[in-house]
């Protein structure tokens, strides 16, 4: 089984090969290195993992396609897809900041302002949630080709807001 993993902020996806050995044991290969992993899933999204004699307590937080992985105080946001999902998602280009970029609402809130400027890092939409205004920035320079968000309307978590191409 091959999974493609992409850390937040990185452009390239890293393949991880997984072979279940039964009894919570796995053979995992990443970056050319193979590990024998003992991974026991506990309650409430926690896992205990033994790798090369090291013990890791892991916490997961799921958020849409992305999973937050906390281990030894380090937070990693990782987008994981298998080959089939990767093909399905080719259209939305979630694995790249090249090409078409869909900006979704990171939380439920109210759209306060919609802009049409398209420089990298420029504010596209302001979403108000929990009494704070949060500006969502363009991940790339380009053109706003689709606009789903309307000023003053409420949006749900992960709602489509803007497409920049």
């Amino acid at each position, binding site marked *: *089984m091959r*999974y493609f*993993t992409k*850390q*937040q902020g990185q452009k390239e996806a*890293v393949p*991880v090969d*997984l072979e*279940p050995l039964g009894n919570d044991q*796995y053979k*995992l290969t*990443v*970056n050319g*290195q193979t*590990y024998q*992993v003992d*991974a026991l*899933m506990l309650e*409430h*999204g926690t*896992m205990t*993992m033994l*790798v090369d004699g090291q013990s*890791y307590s*892991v916490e*997961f*937080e799921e*958020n849409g396609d992305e*999973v*937050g*992985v*906390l*281990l*030894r*105080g*380090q*937070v*990693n*946001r*990782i987008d*994981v897809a*298998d080959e089939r999902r990767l093909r399905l998602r080719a259209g939305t280009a979630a694995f790249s900041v090249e090409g078409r970029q869909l900006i979704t609402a*990171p*939380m*439920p*809130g109210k759209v*306060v302002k919609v802009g049409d400027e398209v420089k990298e890092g420029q504010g596209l939409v302001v979403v*108000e*949630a*929990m*009494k*704070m*205004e*949060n500006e969502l920035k363009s991940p790339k320079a380009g053109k706003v080709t689709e606009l789903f968000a309307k000023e003053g309307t409420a949006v749900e*978590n992960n709602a489509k807001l803007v497409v920049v191409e």
Partner: protein
Amino acid sequence: MPKIRKVLVANRGEIAIRVMRTCKELGIATVAVYSEADRAALHVRTADQAFFVGPPPSRESYLVQQRIIDAAKQAGADAIHPGYGFLSENASFVRACEAAGIAFIGPPASAMDAMGEKTRARANMIKAGVPVVPGSTEPFASLEEARAYALKIGVPVMLKAAGGGGGKGMRKVERAEDFDSSWRAAKSEAMNAFGNDAVYIEKYLEKPHHVEIQVFADQYGNTIHLNERECSAQRRHQKVVEETPSPILTPEMRAKMGEVAVKAAKAVNYVGAGTVEFLVDVHRNFYFLEMNTRLQVEHPVTEWVTGLDLVAMQLRAAEGEKLPLTEAPEPRGHSIEVRVYAEDPGRNFMPSPGKITYLRVPGGPNVRDDSGVFPGYTVPNFYDPMISKLSVWAPTRREAIARAQRALSEYVVKGITTNIRYLKAILAHPEFIEGDYDTSFLTREHETLLGVEDAKLSEMALLASAVHAYQRDQKRAKTLPAASGQGGGNGGVSPWKLALRTRR
């Protein structure tokens, strides 16, 4: 006035519960108000009575004065405690309470008028001989006028909502070209938060400390201070960590600032609990910033080191009792408070409302958690992201830091993202441990506090994420046939086909 028998708490969340706890201990009945979004909230369940006041947005519920007063009348409450935020610093509400024959637990409307509008407060303080941060005392008629003023006193400047608080409607302008957009944003946020878009300008002091003095006054003009709180750990002008005593204050400075704070309170005939905020510059000069005419979020640290119950004192002051003490008590030990926010530090502190699926609250010696949530509770999107404040006490500052760390390591919130890990990083930062951190600390150390990435741990995280994805896929494949009522085992049929069948 005679003894208070029933109090309506015109607020929600942890502060409403905090006030109700003291009321219960004093044998005073409690009344909650709630919006549609708060029907299942803890403060509603904690109170003896609860009244519905309207739709989720606070402007249509918690801020509608008449509905709050109607609820108080209906409940037969003889006093209203406003908590902080909402109507707590609204002079017209105080007058409306008076007109309805209900005691307002807080200062008189005249003191709020004098201190409420920050521009007027600055003018009043200048008159009283209190040092203030250089800046404007009058609102501006236009953007052009405001910009011209900012350029005259020189950037960086601070933009502040005249009716403000809680960091809303506040912006630091570092470059002249950013002035216009910051001005508009500050005005829009101020309008939304306070219904008043007046914004004024202050000179930005480099690396200041935010130190505030808790004051308390009775109805007979007796006014004391209850020492300081160091609140320099701020992000987006919102306090994140507070402590007392301030690590930078000498006993002489404490006495001097306390004296000025008392002078400021007396200048406006203050009654009850209030806080005078100061900025302390690198030369240890201090300037009046504003006065908060209410109980504050961070009042527990003062309670820890003074041994006083500030809410009980507020109730007694409203009943017309004299102050139980005549001068500031000597600070006893050290207290630290951290604010647990429903936000995601890893995603630029985006708010994270939603359902709390699991909650484990810290305990143990000298640990206090003022919280408004419970397992299964859905943190609504309409209100502030602060869900709890954790405070600790210990004999020394070092021990208090260790205790706060220990308590945070026990704190588990699942279902939503919180800033707990970020709080731990702050307490572990050498600058914080040394006790010399200014208001730029959190911004300056942003990267460090979010954690420098360890390559080995990143690789382990990739492995963990793959196992997680695999187990999730396995679980889905197993549960789908059961959902379709076909019994266990998918017999080699694709889970996607099964998923389609269940929808037929």
